[in-house]
């Protein structure tokens, strides 16, 4: 039950009168029993209600459908990686390179920075090859991803609705372009809880490199109108993962625990008086922060990782790189974190796309593939869903030496967690402009992700401002063709 209706239920007229009557009755009884000593043993007030720190079990229990994945690692390629240089081969564009884009395709369409400019086709900057037993077509710019071709499902028909970075991120994360809705990770932790008592259920890390690094606002992992305890927690990829996670000098662990417990008791008194979900959140967060003082240093300490694992990812560790984040993501997954989101900010290639893609791919390709391989050999790819993709794609039209934002068709890949491996789903036209087969809207992706986690997207709702909200709002179709 959501906190608002719980509060309503607690504060009904019947409850109020009932409690008042109890109080009057108790006073009357106390008067009668006065002097007998009996009153002293009676209390008009029961034990304080247990609140807060019990492990959140989620509202979807039992699951709506049999879950295929228990956790998600979302490799979020912020900036909008070009689908034409990654997973969507367009030989026609090679032939058309430098020629004007046919107006029949672009006429009246929304463009970002190319609006009103002459539109010229730009061929793929890197050759494509078929890889793996499945023969998946992948750009040679991604030689390591090519080696997991048989493990990934490439979706070439993604569609979004927002053509600028921030609203597109918001749309991809929350299913709405306007801010204030809960992000996907918050919905999942609200629905399923977390397996970890010592780490947050929803962790975010960022890295950058490869192009202009557009900012990522913290509201991309906000819990919106869900209670604050379901918000994503951002770990820093270099230095202390969490600021001030170490005990201050001269404070012992026991002292810290006493302090936390006292604060908790005070918060519980307030909670009993007001039933404010944010106090519950505060209690939970104090406890979580206290436990993280032990769990976070253990998490980020890579000394127990053998050198060949570090080499697999291509990182020495704790250097703020995407590769280091991938390694940490695997460690978080092993420790029960439900939703891990790694942003790599470096794909906004309005100019110099060839060089930019080379740099960004070098930073991301190996680690992404290594993560899948590592999960696989640990037997975790079966119940971990890995998603690789950005907020949109890029135009088949040149913007000088780069490409502009493109929302009508772009590519992502998914691996593990009940997704059918080794297939390519959906198709764009010969220019890579418009989806012509099996479109997958962002809402459809959300519906599919929730379904893999055992949640039916139409059933996970939260009442706010007088109506029930859900991640997919009134949209979303589960893409059953890509389920294993």
């Amino acid at each position, binding site marked *: 039950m959501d906190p608002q209706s719980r509060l309503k239920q607690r504060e009904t007229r019947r409850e109020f009168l009932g409690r008042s009557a109890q109080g009057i009755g108790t006073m009357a009884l106390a008067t009668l029993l006065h002097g007998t000593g009996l009153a002293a043993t009676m209390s008009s007030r029961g034990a304080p209600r247990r609140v807060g720190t019990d*492990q959140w079990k989620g509202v979807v*229990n*039992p*699951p*709506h*459908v*049999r879950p295929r994945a228990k956790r998600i690692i979302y490799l979020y390629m912020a900036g909008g990686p070009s689908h034409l240089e990654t997973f969507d081969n367009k030989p026609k564009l090679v032939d058309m390179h430098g020629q004007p884009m046919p107006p029949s395709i672009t006429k009246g369409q929304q463009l970002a920075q190319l609006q009103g400019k002459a539109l010229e086709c730009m061929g793929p900057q890197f050759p494509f*090859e*078929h*890889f*793996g*037993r499945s*023969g998946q*077509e992948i750009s040679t710019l991604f*030689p*390591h991803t*090519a*080696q997991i071709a048989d493990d990934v499902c490439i979706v070439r028909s993604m569609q979004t609705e927002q053509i600028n970075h921030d609203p597109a991120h918001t749309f991809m994360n929350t299913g709405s372009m306007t801010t204030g809705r809960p992000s996907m990770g918050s919905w999942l932790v609200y629905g399923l809880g977390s*397996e*970890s*008592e*010592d780490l947050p259920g929803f962790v975010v890390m960022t890295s950058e490199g490869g192009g202009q690094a557009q900012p990522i606002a913290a509201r991309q992992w906000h819990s919106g109108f869900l209670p604050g305890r379901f918000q994503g927690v951002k770990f820093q990829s270099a230095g202390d993962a969490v600021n001030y996670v170490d005990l201050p000098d001269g404070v012992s662990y026991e002292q810290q625990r006493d302090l936390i417990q006292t604060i908790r008791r005070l918060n519980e008194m307030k909670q009993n008086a007001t039933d404010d979900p944010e106090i519950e959140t505060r209690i939970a967060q104090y406890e979580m922060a206290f436990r993280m003082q032990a769990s976070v240093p253990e998490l980020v300490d890579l000394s127990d990782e053998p050198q*060949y694992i570090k080499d*697999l990812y291509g990182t020495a560790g704790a250097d703020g790189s995407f590769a280091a984040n991938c390694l940490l993501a695997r460690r978080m997954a*092993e*420790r*029960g974190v439900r939703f891990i989101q790694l942003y790599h900010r470096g794909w906004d290639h309005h100019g110099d796309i060839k060089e930019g893609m080379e740099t960004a791919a070098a930073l991301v390709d*190996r680690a992404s*593939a*290594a993560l899948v*391989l*590592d999960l*696989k*050999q*640990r*037997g975790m790819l*079966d119940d971990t869903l890995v998603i690789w993709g950005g907020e949109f794609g890029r135009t088949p039209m040149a913007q000088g030496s780069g490409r502009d934002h493109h929302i009508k068709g772009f590519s992502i890949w998914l691996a593990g967690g009940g997704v059918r491996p080794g297939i390519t789903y959906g198709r764009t036209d010969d220019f890579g402009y418009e989806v012509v087969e099996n479109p997958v809207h962002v809402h459809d992706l959300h519906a599919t992700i929730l379904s893999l986690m055992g949640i039916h997207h139409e059933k996970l709702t939260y009442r706010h401002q007088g109506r029930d909200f859900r991640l997919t709002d*009134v*949209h*979303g*179709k589960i893409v059953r063709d890509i389920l294993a």
Partner: protein
Amino acid sequence: MLRKKEPGTKRGQAPFSEPTPTKKGPVPFSYLVPFARIGLVLGFGIVGVALAVALRGIETSDPPDLVLFLGRFHPAVVHLPIGALLLAALLEAAACVRRLRDLRVAVPFVLLVGAVTALLAVVAGYCLSLGGGYEVTLVSRHKWLGVAVFVLASGGFALALAARAPDSWRMRQACRVVLLATAGLVLVTAHYGGTLTHGPGYLTRYLPRLLGGAGDAPHNNVEGLIEDVDSAVVFQDLVVPVFERRCVKCHGPSTSKGDLRLDGQAGIEKGSRHGPALVAAQPGQSEVVRRIALPPFHDDAMPPDGEAPLDVGEIELIRWWIAGGASFEATVREMQDPATSVETYLSRVAAPRQPQKTGIFALQIADPDGAAVAAVERAGFLVRPLTPDAPYLEVTALPVRADLRAQDLAVLDPIRDQIASLDLSLSGVDRLEVIGRMAHLTVLHLQRTRVVDDDLAYLSKLQYLEYLNIYGTNVSDAGLEHLRGLKSLRWLYLWQTDVSEEGATGLKGRLPELQINLGSGFSETISEVSP
């Protein structure tokens, strides 16, 4: 006798009271009076029939508005003769009881009301029928039965008047016979009228089985569910039931308002007198879509007159069918992908899919004991149902795995039949007796535990085990021997163990469908295949 109780009748002849004999003895020709009255009333009937015949002239042409306007009064007027004539019969019957015999005096008046309103109803009904849209034979029968009711009622009235004379026992008997016949005829006529308005079978739809009904008429407008919705023919299996439920009453075989029939392909292709019912692939141009999608208060909205509009799913279904070309043969599978509202409708009419239950899901297992589950949770395990509709549980030791030892597993024993997925990874467990008793285990995580070769012997009876993860343990080829009988095993993780390539190959020889993972890394050369 009434006469004695009501001396006041002397002052004036109340029209329907028994005539007060003015003088004693026979009046000349007085025996003719009843016949004269009968003749008078028969005149009513002749006038009515003449009117009907006169109106015939306008039957072929487009009837004038006045006629159509009068016709609309038929439903309002028609219930008056029904009530009055049945009441007359009831009064006559009740008057047979001695204490109620005074009621007899009202019979002629009630009959007159019945006869006059019957005439009005016949005339209005005839006007209504000129508007067209009704099945011809049904209308014809209803019409002539209505005329017959009027004639009988008039005759009955005359007889009732005549029967007021003393010693008119035979008249009384005749009157009774006519009244009985009138009442019967009223019922039959009314039934035909009802059939015209509500469609055939309306009355007997929910006839209980006890009384000879089929007893299986669907309730709440839910039609029989479709077994395989994908191969259902969109028109016949989905659209037709909607039309039959909501439209055919007025646009069907018994009534076809506007000359439109929606009860089959022929009628839909023919369209109405105003134009085609629909334009294939153009739902926006299709009259039927426009009508059903209008708000109910709109004059053109269908169904009309405050009837509940079609629900969103029904409207979208018809729109989807027309948008897809209004084919009479296409199946759901062959149509363009439906909108969400159509999908919702499809799932509403589809029989719930009964998935083939296999493995542990084919077994009948009791629900887990709540107290036992609570004890497991108190011990620090996470317990979740595996699926929404089976008693099986997924148990994870993750929060307490650092301190978990083999003896702590005893708490799982009471729910051993229900545990289908167990994660003890990174814990200190070794001896696995308790696990060996979990007969329905399908997924078992033992990676990075203290498990050694001999412990795997406990697992050799787990016939449903599909997934076993023992990477990072000291298991060797010898341990794999215990797994040779696990026919269900599909995934085995052996990275960072002492198992050799040969050992793994040997096991795979016994279990051909098994996928064994001994670890993975990047290869130096990229393997390419030609398309």
